[in-house]
C-alpha cells in the first residue's frame, strides 16, 4: 500500500521576508585579540528555526563568532542581539543558548544520564521532570541502553550523541554546534548529518553550526555564510553559493572550480565576453555581482561537471570552445575527472558521470579533446 506523501515541504526562506525580524543579530561586531582581528565589523542576521552554517578555513573567525554568541568571548565593538535583546554583559550561564563542543566536553566523572541531566539540575527542575526529559533525550539520540555508562566506556559516535543530547536537554532557543562531526569517520558523519537535520526539524530550534567542511555545511544548512579573515565573503543557500559565487575566494573554497583570467571585451544584456590571453580564447558567460566595464580584468569560473568533453570538434562558430590534450584521468567510481592541458599550458578539469558500466572509455590519455559549455554554465567574477 502506498501511503500519501507527507506534508509538502514549504519553501523555507524567512530571510526573503522583509516583515520578519531576525532572531539573532550580529551588529557591526568586531573582535580583536591584541593586534589580531578575528572578526572585523561583521553584521549578520539569522532567523528563527533556521539551520545556519558558518563556513571557512581555520582562523577565519567563525569559532570566535560562535563563542561570542555563547558568551565565552566579549565583542570588542558592536553588539549581539538575541530575540531583540542585547546580550552584552550577560554571562554564558545566563544565556538561553547551548553549545555542543568540538571535543564534546563530556564530564568524565558523570554517567551519560548525569551529563544530560546536568543543565536541567542547574535550572532547578524537579527530579521527576528531569528523569522524563533525560529519557526523552536518550530516546532522541537512541542511547537508551547506555544511560548508566561513563563517557570513556562509549565509542566516538556514541559520545557525540551524548554531547548532542546534553546540549539539547535544556531546550535552548539556539543550539550552537562547533565542528560537531569533525571527529567521526566519513560514513558516520554523513548519517549523522541527516539525523541532525531531522532533529532540528522535529524540535523546531535555531541551529548555528561552525564547520570547515563545505559538504557538511551544504548538506545540513538552510543558509551558509562563507567567512574569510573575519569578514563574510558571501551569504546564501547552498546552491546560491555553489552556482553563483560572489568572489574567486568563495568559488575556490566551496567545491571544485576552473578559473580562467581574462579582460572584458564586450558587455551585453546579461552576458559578458572575455578575451583570455593565457588560453587564447574568447569566452562568454553570465556576469556575477558588481559593475562590469569593457577592459576590466575579470575571471571566468566554471565547475568541472558543467564542462563537456568531446573528441569531435564542435561545428564552426560555436561559442566557448577550448581545445587541449588529456593530461590525467582520475576514476572515482561515480565520476571520472579529466584534466585537460590547454595550448597555453593551463589545466582545465572536466568531470563526466559514469552512467554505464562499460569498461572501455572512449577518451584516453593524450587524446586531443574539445571542451565546450553553454553560455550560462559559468560566471564572470570581478573580485
Amino acid at each position, binding site marked *: 500500500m502506498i501511503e500519501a506523501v507527507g506534508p509538502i515541504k514549504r519553501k523555507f526562506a524567512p530571510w526573503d521576508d522583509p516583515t520578519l525580524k531576525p532572531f539573532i543579530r550580529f551588529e557591526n561586531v568586531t573582535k580583536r585579540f591584541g593586534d589580531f582581528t578575528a572578526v572585523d565589523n561583521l553584521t549578520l542576521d539569522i532567523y528563527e528555526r533556521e539551520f545556519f552554517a558558518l563556513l571557512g578555513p581555520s582562523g577565519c573567525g567563525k569559532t570566535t563568532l560562535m563563542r561570542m554568541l*555563547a*558568551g*565565552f568571548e566579549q565583542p570588542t565593538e558592536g553588539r549581539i542581539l538575541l530575540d531583540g535583546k542585547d546580550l552584552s554583559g550577560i*554571562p*554564558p*550561564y*545566563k544565556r538561553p*543558548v*547551548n*553549545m555542543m*563542543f*568540538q*571535543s564534546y*566536553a*563530556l*564530564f*568524565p*566523572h558523570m554517567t551519560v544520564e548525569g551529563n544530560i541531566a*546536568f*543543565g536541567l539540575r*542547574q*535550572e532547578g527542575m524537579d527530579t521527576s521532570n528531569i528523569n522524563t526529559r533525560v529519557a526523552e533525550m536518550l530516546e532522541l539520540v537512541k542511547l537508551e541502553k547506555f544511560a548508566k555508562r*561513563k563517557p*570513556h*566506556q*562509549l*565509542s566516538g559516535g556514541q559520545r557525540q550523541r551524548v554531547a548532542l543530547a*546534553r*546540549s539539547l536537554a*535544556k531546550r535552548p532557543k539556539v543550539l550552537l554546534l562547533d565542528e560537531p562531526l569533525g571527529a567521526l569517520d566519513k560514513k558516520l558523519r554523513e548519517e549523522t548529518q541527516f539525523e541532525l537535520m531531522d532533529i532540528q526539524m522535529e524540535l523546531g530550534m535555531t541551529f548555528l553550526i561552525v564547520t570547515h567542511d563545505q559538504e557538511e555545511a551544504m548538506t545540513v544548512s538552510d543558509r551558509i555564510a562563507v567567512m574569510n579573515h573575519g569578514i563574510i565573503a558571501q551569504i546564501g543557500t547552498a546552491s546560491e553559493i555553489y552556482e553563483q559565487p560572489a568572489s574567486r575566494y568563495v568559488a575556490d573554497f566551496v567545491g571544485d572550480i576552473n578559473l580562467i583570467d581574462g579582460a572584458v571585451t564586450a558587455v551585453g544584456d546579461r552576458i559578458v565576453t572575455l578575451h583570455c590571453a593565457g588560453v587564447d580564447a574568447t569566452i562568454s558567460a553570465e556576469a556575477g555581482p558588481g559593475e562590469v566595464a569593457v577592459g576590466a580584468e575579470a575571471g571566468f569560473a566554471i565547475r568541472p561537471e558543467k564542462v563537456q568533453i568531446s573528441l569531435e570538434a564542435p561545428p564552426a562558430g560555436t561559442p566557448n570552445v577550448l581545445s587541449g590534450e588529456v593530461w590525467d584521468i582520475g576514476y572515482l567510481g561515480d565520476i571520472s575527472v579529466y584534466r585537460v592541458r590547454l595550448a597555453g599550458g593551463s589545466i582545465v578539469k572536466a568531470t563526466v558521470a559514469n552512467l554505464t558500466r562499460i569498461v572501455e572509455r572512449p577518451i584516453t590519455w593524450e587524446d586531443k579533446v574539445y571542451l565546450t559549455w553553454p553560455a550560462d554554465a559559468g560566471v564572470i567574477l570581478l573580485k
Partner: protein
Amino acid sequence: MNKSTSWFNITSLVVGFAFLYVPILILVVYSFNASKLVTVWGGFSTQWYVELVHDQAIIDAAWVTIRVGIISASFATVLGTMAALVLDRYRKFHGRALFSGMVYAPLVMPEVITGLSLLLLFVAIGFDRGFWAVVIAHTTLTMCFVAVVVQSRLVTLDRSLEEAALDLGCPPVKTFFLITLPLILPGVVAGWMLAFTLSLDDLVIASFNTGPGATTLPIKIYSMVRLGVTPEINAISTILISVIAVGVIAASVLSHRSQVEKEKAERAVFLTN
C-alpha cells in the same frame, strides 16, 4: 643493542640501590635488636617498640608532628591549589613569570634560609614561636610542592569541560566544585600527602620556629641522638619511614590508578567496536 641485562647494568642497579637503602635497612633491622648496644646484634625483639609506647615525651612529640602535618598540609593544599589554578588559568598577566618563579622558588630555597627568614618575621611581628609558628612555616614550605603537583594535573584538564558547565547554566564557583575539583582531586590528594610527609620529616624549619610544648618528632629524635643513639630511636625512625613510605606510595598510586583505569576502559571500548 643487547636487550638482556649485562653485568654492568646489574652492578649499577645493585650498587645504586645499596647506596640508597642499606643505611635505612640497617636502621630498620637494629630497631628489632634485643641488645641495648646499637652495634651489637643480640637477637630479635620488639621491646624497643613497647618502650616507645610508654615514653610520654615521644608520644607527645609524635602527636604534635601529626597535628602540624595535617593542619599545615591542609592549608598548603588550599593555597597551592589556588596558586596552581591562577598559573594555569591566567596565561597572560603582568608579572606572571615572576609570580610563577616565586611560587616555585621555595622548592630550591635552602631550608635554613626559609627557617631563618620565618623566624625573623615571627620575631618582628611579635608572633609567639610554637605550634602555630611551625604550622605556618610548614605551610610555606609545602605549598609550592602542592602547586606543582596540582598544576601538572590541571594541564591535562580540558578547558572546554568548564565552559560546557557554564554553558549549561552552572555559575563559575559551582563549576569549580562540581567539575574542576572532582577532576583534579587525585592531584589535590597527592599534593596533600606530599605536603604531609614533607612536614612530618622536616627538622630544620621546625627547629627554627618551634617553642615550648611544640617539639616535633624530628626535633625530639635529633636531641635524643645528641646523647647517643639508642635502639628506641631506631624504632621510632622505622615507624616514621613506614608512615612516609605509605604516604608516598599512596600518593603515586592515586595519581596513576585513575590514568590506568581510564586507558583500560578506552581499550575495552576500542576492542568491542
